[in-house]
């Protein structure tokens, strides 16, 4: 099966890299799914979960990451996801995110509320 190479990088570290068969991300004009052989693409990401269907020695699996804004770029079967902040779903502490969400809601901190929500959505998406 055809594969594409995915690099998920945050500003201060490389979060995940590996082979995948499909990557679904949300750009500012809607969700986009990238499969191997896609046309070269450069898009602006909206904050939200990114789903990576992995391939490789360990067989198929799904990696979900919370991406807080950034870019998606695809060329030569190489896909890079750039984000200032990016976290894998297993790195997210659900309880902590829930607490952060409550706190943000009570303090009416829109930015923090959005960040916590994205984390929770990513954590839920991978749990399903």
């Amino acid at each position, binding site marked *: 099966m055809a594969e594409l190479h995915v690099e998920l990088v*945050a500003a201060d570290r490389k979060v995940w890299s590996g082979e995948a068969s499909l990557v679904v991300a949300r750009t500012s004009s809607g969700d986009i799914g990238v499969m191997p052989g896609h046309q*070269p693409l*450069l898009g*602006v990401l909206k904050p939200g979960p990114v789903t990576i269907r992995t391939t490789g020695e360990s067989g198929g699996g799904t990696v979900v990451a919370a991406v807080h804004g950034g870019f998606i770029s695809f060329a030569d079967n190489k896909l890079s996801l750039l984000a200032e902040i990016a976290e894998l779903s297993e790195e997210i502490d659900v309880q902590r995110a829930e607490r952060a969400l409550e706190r943000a809601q009570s303090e009416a901190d829109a930015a923090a509320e959005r960040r916590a929500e994205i984390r929770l959505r990513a954590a839920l998406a991978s749990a399903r």
Partner: protein
Amino acid sequence: MGAQVRIYKRRIRSVSATKKITKAMEMISASRIVKAQRQVAASTPYAEELTRAVAAVATGSDTQHPLTTETEKPTRAAVLLVTSDRGLAGGYSANAIKAADRLTERLRAEGKEVDSYIIGRKGVAYYGFRDRKIAQSWTGFTDRPSYADAKAVSGPLIEAVRRDTAEGGVDELHIVFTEFVSMMTQNPVEKRMLPLSLDEVTRQVEKQERIRPLYDFEPSAEEVLDALLPRYVESRIYNALLQSAASEHAARRRAMKSATDNAEDLIKSLTRLANQARQADITQEISEIVGGASALADASAGSD
């Protein structure tokens, strides 16, 4: 014990206490350099991908953007100076400040007004003491900058570049920071950050790969560029902050190493002097006893 010896002993004690402190600081800085270098390495993938993306937009379309267009007659420039929060780092902050002064003078000679933006307590103190105007300053993170710090710094700067010059905006942004070449060498450098020359970015990438594919832009090339360029500037500033932090630690390590060496030399020479003084005391005592004994012997011989 003679008074001289006591004074020497006291000075040796105080110098060795200082030596212990400088030695500890040297070792702390040495370990922090490694950490700072690791941070630089960790941020490289992001910076590289971002540079590649900017180059892709630059070659894939001929969009214009306020951050890339040169003003015909620039009248005001912003200078971002990166210094340290703490001292005891040799000439680290002083060299960066000197480089910024030279740049400021050159810009003034070209007929531009200069707005100073400063990072680090040392730079703020220098400008404050000389009553120079600071447009904005940030302190508290120079030895360990995070990406959020770089974002906090670049926000107002990008804002200033976008604003019209007549309304207090600037036409150019220069940055002065200390480049980390190696453990032994760190150079203060000045770079023009904005307006960004897209050709230069493209050239940088083309060194590595030749063919650029034609990209599909989502939603449009203008919007992608609009989102990309501020991130690109942030990542350049982040890189400058990280390099400055590594340089600061390297400079401090070197300064503390020479302080430790000097303390060792000082202890050695003071020990010699103390020994000499002790020997002189002993010699004097002996000659006094001998002199006293022979005087007694003479006196008793005379009485016979």
